[in-house]
């Protein structure tokens, strides 16, 4: 009995706050042990992102991609489909968006930009949808196929970025830059924050509405909760092995496009690295609720910005910052995963 109560507590929101508290305590302890100026270090780690408009804006900017990938994972998980290929989908989205922008240098911004974004969404949706299709057709495991497809795709994109599409005028491993009219509007100079943060928030609200109120959303959720029941009730269960995956991949492709068109203006090698995996963590913390993806992504971006500020302003080394970040991610995702696996077990049974 006591154990069950503890379990419930851990998986509830209070549990999440508690976990974050514990994680922060461990980080403070680490800094106290390893830093010669722990006061400054702790200050910048936790308060740093709010000390300058530049830091604050960059923190918000970083959360944009996480919101999109977090939404993608939330939609997939909510439907009990499993997309572990976010890295490859986001990266290929970035490449396709760049390639389209470079191929159409003279179109009006809105037309070419829309084409680039659409292309990125389609490539992501295709790559993830493929895993869904294999699962529907031959029963292959989505976790594995999505991961493997993504791992292969990353290598292909790397080749294209450093080979055929490499910009010879630039010493970095990158493609050429996209034309001015395709770059998103900056809204908080001097930081990198651009207008796409509004798209991300709108996408979160739209996804929530889609999942809760629309025909597809309802059927996807029902399939996610109980496929036996859904099949009996006449819902096309096979279709919903593919559709949520494709939507999930689409969000990842979009994240890649936004990171090119909003921040980097070109497809650098590894430009979206981390977006896919961190999106999973974001979705887990948000418990697959699209609205909760917004604060979860902000929290992730905040930790990253804090670590950067502490490195700049105190004697926190890159390693210590990464370890501190890892401790927090580890505890928070473990806590969220715990509830997730409990519910997945129920679906399987």
């Amino acid at each position, binding site marked *: 009995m006591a154990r069950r109560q503890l379990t419930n507590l851990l998986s509830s929101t209070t549990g999440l706050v508690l976990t974050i508290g514990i994680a922060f305590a461990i980080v403070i302890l680490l800094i106290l042990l390893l830093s010669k100026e722990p006061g400054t270090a702790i200050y910048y780690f936790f308060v740093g992102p709010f000390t300058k408009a530049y830091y604050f804006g960059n923190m918000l900017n970083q959360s944009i991609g996480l919101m999109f990938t977090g939404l993608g994972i939330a939609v997939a998980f909510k439907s009990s489909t499993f997309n572990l290929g976010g890295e490859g989908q986001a990266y290929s989205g970035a490449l396709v968006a760049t390639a389209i922008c470079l191929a159409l240098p003279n179109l009006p911004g809105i037309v070419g930009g829309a084409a680039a974004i659409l292309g990125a969404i389609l490539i992501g949706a295709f790559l993830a949808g493929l895993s869904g299709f294999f699962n529907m057709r031959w029963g292959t495991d989505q976790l594995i196929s999505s991961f493997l497809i993504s791992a292969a795709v990353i290598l292909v994109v790397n080749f294209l970025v450093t080979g055929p599409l490499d910009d010879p005028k630039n010493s970095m491993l990158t493609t050429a830059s996209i034309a001015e009219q395709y770059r998103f509007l900056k809204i908080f100079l001097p930081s990198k924050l651009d207008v796409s943060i509004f798209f991300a928030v709108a996408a979160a609200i739209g996804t929530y509405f889609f999942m809760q*109120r*629309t*025909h*597809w959303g*309802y*059927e996807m*959720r*029902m399939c996610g*909760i*109980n496929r*036996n*029941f*859904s*099949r*009996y*009730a*006449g*819902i*096309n269960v096979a279709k919903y092995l593919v559709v949520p995956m494709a939507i999930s991949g689409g969000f990842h492709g979009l994240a890649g496009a936004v990171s090119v068109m909003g921040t980097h203006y070109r497809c650098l090698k590894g430009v979206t690295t981390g977006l896919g995996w961190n999106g999973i963590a974001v979705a887990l913390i948000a418990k697959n609720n699209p609205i909760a993806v917004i604060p979860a992504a902000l929290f992730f971006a905040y930790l990253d910005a804090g670590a950067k500020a502490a490195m700049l302003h105190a004697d926190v080394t890159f390693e210590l910052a990464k370890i501190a970040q890892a401790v927090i991610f580890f505890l928070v995702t473990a806590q969220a995963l715990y509830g997730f696996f409990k519910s997945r077990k*129920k679906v399987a049974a």
Partner: protein
Amino acid sequence: MAYLEMRGITKLYPASGVLANSAVDLSVEENEIHAVIGENGAGKSTLMKLLYGLEHPDAGEVHLRGEKVVIKDPLAANRLGIGMVHQHFKLVSDFTVAENVVLGSEPRKRGLFVDRRKAAKDVGEVIEEHGFSIDAKRRVKNLTVGQMQQVEIVKMLYRNAELLILDEPTSVLTEQEIERLFGTLRNLIGRGKTIILITHKLEEVMQMSDRVTVMRGGKVVALRNTSDVDKRELSRLMVGKDILLQVNRTPKTFGDPVLEMKGVSIRCRGQERPLLDEIDLQVRSGELVGIAGVGGNGLAEIEDVIGGLRPATAGHIYLHGDDVTSFDAQHLREAGLAYVPADRLNRGASLPTTVRENCIATKHHDFLRAGVLQRRGIREFTRRLIEHFSIDAGESMPAGNLSGGNIQKMILARELSAESDFILFSEPTWGLDIASSQFVYEKMLELRDRGAGVLLISSNLDEILGLADTILVMYRGRVVGRLENNEALTKEIIGEYMLGLRDDSRTPSEAIPSEVRRG
């Protein structure tokens, strides 16, 4: 002193409120084959789960060789020399026979690694010693069903089981495989083992057992020497006396057929005996057809085939005259199927979702405007169902918070709201209390009187006799009896069909197999 004594065993399942065992006594002598028989839900399986440590009794004691024992889990049962062969095999299909047998008690080498060679050799010895016909190195997925069962028996022998529990061992076997199994059992008795045989097949009881314990409704109703009873008496003991249902079934003339099955069969690979064998069936409008049978004889398969959840491998199904044989559940729903499933907690309802979302599952298309679900319409619809069917629930409650009876009412409300003129009920009152059952009966008769065709699949003879106009009895995947429900028809007669004592589908000489008694 008997070899095994179970005294006053009581087990209540609090979730469903079912008293599965009530002060049950079971006494098994050393080196006998002891049959435990009873209908579905009589409590046989629960009793065996308690003996094998899969469940724990609320009251009662177990004595083995005169000593009181507490069986915590199956491993403890194994240590005491108790082994169980489950009805559904628990084997890893990608492992070899030997790997499956040693799983959980593998021979080690250097304390860490599985000694595969020793495993194969030891298992080979057990197989040879008992004259089984399986190869220890073959993968389980390449075996026939009968051979898989042998693996399960070998598994228990490898663990030095002295008392073997076999749960419905013949339900998946062909006649030849059954003969072979019986040979094995006789051989085991010759080697001093003791066997408990769980079954509802009287033929096997008469052929194999020394003594028989009969269970009904969670209680032991009789313990007999097999030589002192005949099948008719056992059948009467199993089904009990007639209980008249409080229903009023008025005679009617029937209309056109709404559902027809012609020669529908299901055959599985690796299984010689078909799960469904050339089923012919017709439900006319205004007619309530009952399908009776003991579990494992094809009732669940009929449900799945009509519900579109399992394809028939031969034959044709017609709904309102249209061939729907190849339709899946989605298309059958569109063609007007309404269906109350036996598995109401997993198939019939989605417990974590709200009552509202459960109620609209089959007809959410009706509430769409431009692809968006109209909340007001859904709310009104759900409220109406809750009111009409007096469901004790709120529309936003998770369905899992409802009682069993109210979950069934919710499913009924949803399925009946389709106003379909064919509706399938499978085990609609299983586990329900009397008031809820009565409610279900009234609804079924209402549908019939309104002119719908109703198909009732049930292992509860009382409800079949009380409600059905026409009764079909299933045995081993075949329809063995097609009976008009009139005064002359009794539970005993249906019971005899259900247990394979009567069979109209074969010539009389085949119907009652010659009785082979064990010498």
